[in-house]
């Protein structure tokens, strides 16, 4: 099965291609701000190296979030449009869910992505990959509470860097496997493709896990208050 995968929700972006022998080849962006610039060149390089054309792919996979809002959009738009242009099916996976792969008999997995101000997008998976804490937006303290009493939990994700102090006394995964990658997306996508779980590109939607701040402020009336305060300040002058 030939799957081209994109992962752009974290600090480094990556693209991966499953080779005919089942192995996965993967490339990373140079820096933290290069997701848009380098994603398609990486994908092209992978295809060229394997000597296959976009038409020979079985599917396009992407991690739909959560993570960086702009990063999510780069990956999802690239995957949607690539699938639209090449007539391929899409497979969307959660950037938290793909960390189930890291669970095993010897370790449970806690994933935390930094969502600032003590918040995370997080999940906790048991030794068999089952959910101890379902993927979602949480306070960091919620995740720490969920892992209490277990001694085989390993933490993953960029939240471990952002909340370094809170990680004291916790096991944190080595940097070589700490973050979400296109290879992890590809592995999950292979399972889903085998089960026939693909989507048409127009049904692949980002999973931000959070509404836009302005939307929340409009609904709870904060936006109106801010506007009034601004006008009142102006009147005093």
């Amino acid at each position, binding site marked *: 099965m030939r799957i081209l995968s994109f992962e752009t929700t974290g600090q480094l972006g990556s693209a991966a291609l499953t080779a005919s022998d089942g192995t996965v080849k993967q490339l990373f962006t140079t820096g933290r701000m290069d997701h*848009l610039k380098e994603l398609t060149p990486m994908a092209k390089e992978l295809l060229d190296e394997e000597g296959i054309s976009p038409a020979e792919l079985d599917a396009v996979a992407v991690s739909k979030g959560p993570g960086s809002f702009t990063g999510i959009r780069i990956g999802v738009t*690239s995957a949607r449009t690539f699938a639209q242009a090449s007539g391929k099916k899409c497979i969307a996976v959660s950037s938290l869910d793909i960390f189930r792969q890291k669970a095993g008999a010897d370790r449970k997995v806690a994933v935390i992505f930094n969502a600032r101000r003590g918040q995370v997008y997080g999940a906790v998976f048991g030794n068999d990959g089952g959910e101890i804490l379902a993927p979602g937006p949480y306070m960091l303290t919620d995740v720490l509470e969920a892992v209490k009493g277990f001694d085989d939990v390993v933490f993953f994700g960029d939240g471990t860097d952002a909340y370094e102090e809170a990680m004291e006394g916790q096991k944190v995964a080595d940097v070589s496997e700490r973050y979400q990658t296109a290879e992890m997306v590809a592995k999950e996508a292979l399972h889903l493709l085998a089960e026939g779980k693909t989507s048409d590109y127009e049904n692949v939607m980002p999973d931000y896990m959070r509404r836009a701040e302005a939307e929340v402020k409009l609904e709870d009336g904060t936006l109106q208050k801010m506007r009034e305060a601004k006008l009142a300040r102006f009147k005093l002058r």
Partner: protein
Amino acid sequence: MKDKRFLTLAIESSCDETAAAVLSGGRDVLSDVVSSQIDIHEKYGGVVPEIASRHHLTAVNSVIDEALAKAGVTLDDISLVGVTCGPGLVGSLVIGIAAAKAIAMAKNIPLVGVNHMYGHVSSNFIQYKELEPPFLSLIVSGGHTNLVYMESYTSCRVLGSTRDDAAGEAYDKVARVIGLGYPGGPKIDRLAKEGDPEAIHFKRVYLEKGSFDFSFSGIKTGVLNYVNSQKQAGRDINAADVAAGFQEAVVEVLVNKAMEAAEMTGSDSIVIAGGVAANDRLRKELSSACDSKNIKLYLPEKRLCTDNASMIGCAAYYKYQALGDDGLYLDAYPSLPVDAQIKISGDGETSW
């Protein structure tokens, strides 16, 4: 079999319109689709970047499909993909560029990044088939106010720029203060027709003699101070007179500077571009000023003034002819200068 014509698919998403178009050659528009978010941002009193980005993502693929369908072609017929790569809101730009790159890669089609400002000027090439550079151009939009001398299809010399607010930005801010809301340009233009432009005089700012730069924050502040002082004195404000007086001040400066620039450059024509070029008062005043000086005025119809993908397709076509393609390393350049032309080498080296 591939269409024999040279067809360009263009995508534009630099602010709050998601747009796609198909052109044959540089000037023949086969389809032009715009999905506007104005209704969404109206409730917020202006464009909210995060919300704009989210809507671009859900709109862009169907907008592209519709543009292809209306042109009666498929991606297999397309010879070139052009996309706005700056200036603009970064989160918005990203969507059009990611989509354009994915198509270019999937279909192995050359890709060109277009400076939005060259796009605005190019809307005139679509309407006026005989128009060719060099010429003098006044570009007025929500983000920019520039007088440029277009030396060729792909290069220009900037004669003047705004030192603070763009004209369209001043419109939006004044509209907010007199309670008209977003988008300010068309709302002030409409209300001003009911007002007396002479009733309230706002100071015109021309800067130093011979300068082609603009400053609109002074006019805007003049309006704010006037509104404030009237409110303080308990007097009602005639919003129509305020709108008309403000608009008169802005338009007068724009027209006079454009006419001076024409004289300085020895131009016998002026080409207008940008969203504010849809303003009725500006169109009328420019027409009469040009008539009196025997200068030919190029004024695109209104739908070509506001953001659209046809103009991007036109600019992409001429850039590709002159400079070749940019390839897959294209990125978003939110602060791209008005005269800059992005050029990317095969290994991703970027210059302008």
